[in-house]
């Protein structure tokens, strides 16, 4: 994973956010992915989302597994600590990190190989635990880094570059997450920044595990005729059902939107996610109906994108475990060690 430092050029006309930072302050090293790789567009979306949320970069921890997708944390937020871990293990490592320090904002970047094959167990259990983090699957239907083998999300019949057709049914991370009780499930497309950025922002503010599956074509191994995760295929078959517009609490009062056309979902921290319904009566809060809707769309070959499901009433890992609000890493040793008198007393029961 070689990378080249980007020159820091601050254009005076660049917009500042509330921290006085420009969008450039949220960037990372120069990407070394193939030109045109969908993953780079997602990186740009992540940069924008953090910039617009006014997040101090150092308060973010970015983690990943192994794969082209998992390299990308090097390409955003150079002011944040990063952990490019091992193939499939990111969810577990992020879980431990979140357990230790609940005040950071966690973003995990993974691929469909990383998440749906080798790391499926960890992802599933991070969902069950409802670890507060944004979990992105950069989904291209192939193993990019190991040169184009089918991944578990490859659609049946999808063709590889060599012309082989995939013979196994795919794992759909969205359906999987819904059945595991995920409290935030979204899907987007790397080439659709207008939709992706608000989804990422909403996901980052969600108080729990937020899964965002982003279709992200691999231009080198999976962007040819016959692939179901190519740019062409996705653009043609994508059906955005919900236009997501995230409104932070401060902006809420002045935001101008028409009641009746908008579904409002209140997040835990009081912020509001505004959902513009494109579909006639889409309700992202009813798990059963969402699942059947997605099933129907799948059957008709449509890729539904948008904020597909949200339950802001779920109990995040720490609240469920009743951990102290002070991050465990900030507890002074004196509050952790019972001391010699307690040991003395305890030992009377071992006599």
């Amino acid at each position, binding site marked *: 994973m070689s*990378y080249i430092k980007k020159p820091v050029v601050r254009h005076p006309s660049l917009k500042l956010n509330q921290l006085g930072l420009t969008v450039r302050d949220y960037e990372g090293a120069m990407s070394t992915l193939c030109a045109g790789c969908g993953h780079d567009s997602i990186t740009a979306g992540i940069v924008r989302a953090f910039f617009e949320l006014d997040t101090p970069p150092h308060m973010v921890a970015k983690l990943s597994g192994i794969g082209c997708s998992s390299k990308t944390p090097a390409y955003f937020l150079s002011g944040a*600590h990063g952990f490019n871990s091992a193939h499939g293990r990111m969810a577990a490592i992020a879980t431990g990190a*979140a357990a*230790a320090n609940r005040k950071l904002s966690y973003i995990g970047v993974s691929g469909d190989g990383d998440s749906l094959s080798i790391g499926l167990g*960890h992802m599933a259990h991070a969902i069950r635990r409802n670890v507060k983090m944004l979990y992105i699957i950069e989904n291209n239907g192939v193993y990019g880094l190991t040169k184009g083998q089918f991944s578990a999300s490859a659609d049946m019949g999808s063709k590889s570059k060599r012309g082989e057709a995939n013979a196994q049914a795919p794992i759909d991370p969205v359906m999987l997450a819904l059945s595991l009780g995920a409290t935030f499930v979204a899907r987007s497309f790397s080439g659709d920044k207008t939709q992706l950025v608000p989804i990422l922002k909403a996901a980052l503010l969600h108080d729990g595990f937020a899964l965002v599956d982003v279709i992200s074509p691999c231009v080198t191994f999976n962007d040819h005729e016959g692939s179901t995760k190519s740019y062409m295929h996705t653009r043609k078959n994508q059906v955005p059902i919900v236009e997501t517009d995230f409104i932070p609490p401060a902006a809420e009062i002045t935001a101008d939107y028409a009641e009746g056309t908008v579904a409002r979902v209140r997040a835990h921290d009081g912020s509001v996610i505004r959902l513009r319904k494109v579909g006639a009566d889409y309700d992202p809060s009813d798990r059963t109906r969402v699942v059947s809707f997605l099933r129907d769309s799948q059957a008709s070959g449509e890729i539904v994108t948008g904020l597909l499901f949200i339950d802001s009433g779920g109990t995040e890992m720490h609240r469920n475990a009743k951990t102290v609000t002070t991050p465990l890493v900030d507890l002074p040793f004196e509050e952790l060690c019972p001391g010699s008198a307690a040991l003395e007393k305890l030992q009377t029961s071992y006599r």
Partner: protein
Amino acid sequence: MQAIFRMGIPVSGKNLFPSNIQGLPTWYEVRVNLRGHTARTSEYDLMVAMNAETYARDVREVRPGGYVLYDSTWPLDPALMRDDVTFLGVPYARLCNESFTEARERTLMKNIAYVGTLAALFDIDMDIVSGMLKEKFARKPALMESNAKAIQLGHRYALEHFECPLPFRLESMDATKDSILIDGNTATALGCVYAGATVAAWYPITPSTSVLDAFKGFCEAYRVDKATGEKRYCILQAEDELGAIGMVIGAAWNGARAFTSTSGPGISLMSELIGLAYYAEVPAVIIDVQRVGPSTGMPTRTQQGDIMMCAYASHGDTKHVVLFPSNPRECFEFAVKAFDLAERLQTPVFLLSDLDIGMNDWVVPRLQWDDGYKPHRGRVLSKEELLALPKFHRYSPEDELGVAARTLPGVHEKGAFFTRGSGHNKLGGYTEIPDEYQEVMDRLLRKHRAARTIVPEAVIERRAGATFGVVTLGGCDPAVREALDVLEERGIRGNFLRVRAFPFGDEVEAFLAEHDTLFVVEQNRDAQLRSLLVMETQVAKEKVRSVLAYGGFPLQANQVIEGIVARLGAGASVNGTAPHTNGHAHAHTHGAHDAHDARQEPHGDEGGMP
């Protein structure tokens, strides 16, 4: 056992149980010995035969001149009789049927009545026994009453029918006043609490499960805010061991003291991430309570079979710091030490215990805690320190241990770096340049070598006129010491060294150099400690011989004696048999003696006393 301990007598208890939840026979062995030898021995002086299925074998195992205590409600099969042992029959079933009405109580109290008989036979202080009953059933007076009654039944019957006490008996001593009776897993967990560990991630596996059970119990007692119910710890029962070690690494990367507890199969699964933590220099404490065999193997039997695996866990060039406690007290101390070492050296540290240490009760000196203890967090830069630096590099500059400073997520942008397994140079930048890569690997090796100066030193005991050295580790300690005592009485003298950590300190190197003949005593087939010594020290391979026992039961002194005598050659073999014979010589004068009972009882007999 607890009653004997309270009489001030050194004692050990070994629970020998099969791997099942209920139904198969289990044995409980108690060893008492005037000289404090408490290693396991199979020279049974007294056998409590409670299980008809195993009568034949049990009776066979008693040493000549020993005793068998059995339920004489039904006559004993004459085929089982032996002329050289004394049979003591007590009609437990009949006595209990006469005294108790409920069926369940009758069965349970039969087991309790044995305790009364043993107390009479060995002259165990009955005040201590009733004191224990009172403590145990303080909140259940009805249960206490029936237990006391059952004990009385067994006790009275023995006094009326046998010559009590037996020629070997117990007499109060003053040897356990400053000791406690505790198992290694409990002590390990307590060490983790005292070290300030806040994140524990694990996946259940015998025999390590009770570490986490105990950790949870202590945390509930000491780390829950009384007013709010908030917890100052987080226990994650992971989806598997790959997840458990991942969680530990994630938490430690973030600055928490984090640990996992597992057994051999778990270490196998964790290996990939252990290698990553080693190379990326993330602390982790890994407790391995060793058991026997792959997959299920013999999960309730003990072994020291993970020495090599832990020392070199993972692919490529890896070498780890491994601590070898020999008893629960060291489990406690080394658990604390493991966190200090892991953070100081920024690397995974193993605490290698085993089933014998972890799950059996041991008499050990009271645990000590110094309130002046400050956790050694290693080189972690604060925001202020970071800002004072011209520039922060994750892997430079190194200190005298070969360790570079790290920063924790959330501290400041200036300290941000990218942790990864990909090749990095000494500044932390990505590299694939051979020299740059090797430079970092060489520092990691320097760091590992330097660890030998801060890990627990080996224990060495020398005897005048010693002609050989014995090297051992962990739970072999009592059996090896006993063996050396017995051998000395036969005129064979050896020096003793117990390694307590890998990498080996200079004192180990010197001890090996000092002897022309060395025995390495350990509990595995492939002589793993010996291999490690041969590979990691200058010792000449030819002079190191092995004494191995790996059947799954705790090591016995006679196994060590036989092994050493056999290899020393004919000239050295001296008549005399097993170690317990020496105990006999002192029995009459001092009154305490080897007394073993093997009692068979089903798992989970609630309401029972033993």
